[in-house]
């Protein structure tokens, strides 16, 4: 963590805390019946999105999953439109047409959450190819879950990225479960990063609750990609506080698991780490916590006060032009 400045550390903390606060609040809003549809929360995996995206600029791309809020925030998507999108309001990132499962902001290089598990793998090759053909140094991150690693699209995408030497980093967020199915059942590989052998690309498994571990491994992989050395696979092992989606009974968790999660909290760990090393002060972090709360409250207010789209909006944006 030596190479990160104090400002950077504070930004990182702020970003992780914003994700956590956003997700906790969304969970509450869902329970209150205020949010329509299926909502998949990211809390517990903050160190992954932020550890990876803190290496990126707005010009870089990410593809995401059904669980995209954390990726959005880490990639710099604005909070107010995000919250409004979850409500289906016209001020939402996608004018309310996408919702949580399709939240996107192409201007920020966030190529969309995705309702199709593994759907982002091929897309990541696409933004990667654009960068390669245009000769830029833009990098694409493909976030995918442990469950997604069993989808054929991920296999095809990793092979293609390697043979074309695309600037793509495949980041597997292994929380140990696909819905209620444990990775030890659905995945034949010992570690998902073992699959890197199948594509002759570098593969690593890191502790996804440890920001610095993720940051370092992702940093190397991203540097490789930027330098034209092709793709890598980084598996981040972690956990998630909430269930698969809001409303699920979480029968697949045990009390011990949940207790263990709390001990490994990525934000707590980060906080302790930077405090222990006297890199920042407790007051600075507390201030960020308070600000995050306020930001999210403002976003809820923004979303709730926003209007629904006009009904004709149902019919627009299907095509650029159609006649």
């Amino acid at each position, binding site marked *: 963590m030596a190479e990160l400045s104090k400002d950077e550390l504070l930004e990182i903390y702020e970003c992780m805390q914003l994700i956590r606060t956003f997700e906790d609040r969304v969970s509450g809003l869902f329970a209150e019946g205020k949010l329509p549809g299926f909502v998949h929360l990211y809390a517990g995996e903050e160190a992954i999105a932020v550890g990876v995206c803190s290496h990126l600029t707005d010009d870089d791309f990410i593809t995401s999953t059904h669980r995209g809020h954390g990726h959005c925030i880490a990639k710099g998507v604005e909070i107010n439109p995000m919250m409004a999108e979850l409500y289906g309001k016209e001020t939402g990132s996608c004018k309310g047409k996408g919702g949580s499962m399709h939240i996107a902001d192409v201007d920020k290089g966030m190529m969309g959450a995705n*309702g199709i598990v593994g759907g982002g793998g091929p897309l990541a090759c696409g933004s990667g190819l654009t960068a390669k053909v245009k000769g830029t140094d833009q990098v694409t991150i493909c976030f995918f879950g442990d469950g997604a690693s069993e989808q054929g699209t991920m296999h095809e995408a990793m092979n293609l990225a390697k043979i074309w030497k695309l600037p793509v980093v495949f980041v597997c967020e292994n929380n140990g479960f696909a819905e209620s199915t444990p990775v030890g059942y659905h995945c034949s590989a010992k570690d998902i990063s073992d699959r890197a052998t199948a594509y002759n690309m570098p593969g690593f498994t890191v502790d996804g609750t440890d920001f610095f571990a993720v940051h370092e491994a992702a940093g190397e992989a991203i540097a490789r990609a930027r330098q034209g050395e092709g793709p890598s696979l980084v598996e981040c092992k972690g956990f998630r506080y909430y269930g698969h989606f809001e409303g699920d009974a979480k029968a697949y968790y045990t009390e011990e698991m949940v207790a263990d999660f709390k001990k490994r909290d990525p934000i707590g760990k980060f906080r302790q780490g930077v405090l222990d090393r006297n890199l920042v002060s407790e007051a600075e972090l507390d201030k960020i916590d308070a600000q995050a709360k306020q930001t999210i409250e403002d976003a809820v207010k923004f979303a709730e006060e926003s209007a629904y789209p006009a009904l004709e909006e149902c019919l627009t944006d299907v095509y650029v032009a159609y006649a």
Partner: protein
Amino acid sequence: MTDRTITFMEAINEALRQEMRRDETVILMGEDVAGGATLDHIEGQGEEAWGGVLGVTKGLVQEFGRNRVLDTPISESAFIGTTVAAAATGLRPVAELMFVDFFGVCMDQIFNQGGKLRYMFGGKAQVPMVVRTMIGAGLRAAGQHSGCHYPVFTHMPGLKTVVPSCPADAKGLLAGAIRDNDPVIFFEHKVLLFGEGPVPEEEYVLPLGVADVKREGSDVTVVAIGRMVSFALEAAEQLAGDGIEVEVIDPRTLSPLDEGTILDSVKKTHRLIVVDEDNPRCSMAADLVSLVSTQAFDYMDAQPQALTAPHTPVPFSPPLEDFYIPSVDTIVEAVKTAVNGS
């Protein structure tokens, strides 16, 4: 019929349970159809962690065990192809494709393998498989979890397609689908799943290819599919107050299609309206209008009408999604136009 009332979801579950009891070659597979495979506190206790994403298959693993209720990885091509060849080699597997919107990752195994194997082998194989899958808008599930897509399957030779509209039909048609010797795609509307209706407790089988006249009437034939059947019935009820008698036909199976029942009805009423929640182009709505127009043209006294969703993906925003779905009001208006002229 029966006094017992259960949900659509329970009706499906009961059909699965009774068929699995009756025939041990019937097995089930899909993502989290039981849930928690290999977890000590779940599988170790003979339990399930989920029972299908909305709970449709709850309790089946407890009765039939993990050898017959198989959790799968998120590998739809693999497990649907498994279903095809397991069917061709002696089982009667039922696969769950969680949402029909996922067909794009596994359609080859469904239509090109499952649907064509018998034909391409010169009739020397049969593929008694069922794919259960969820359809429909209304739960704010947005663009990739709210489609219907049954025309894509109905188009394909070799497949049969079933869209039940009420719990009793769901039970009987699913039993029929499982006993059928051809590949059947069975579409369960996610909004209907929570609705209730009378359902006999004992085993029964509804044959595929037989439409049901849900309400008799002499003025207009409304053919409605899936969730739209209840909308059509509601419209019919309203219109009855105005003295307009609507005949509501539920085809129940789209392939094979009970053409006779539909044509006979139009020959009686001389007016056709089709109500279909799906997008309009190359749709079941178009298919039904075309059927009647090409076969009973001389009996039609009014321009046929197709009421469908617009040619757009399903929007997330609640008011937009409500706008997307054909409404009871639209049906009422259409019937009035058909009867009174426009």
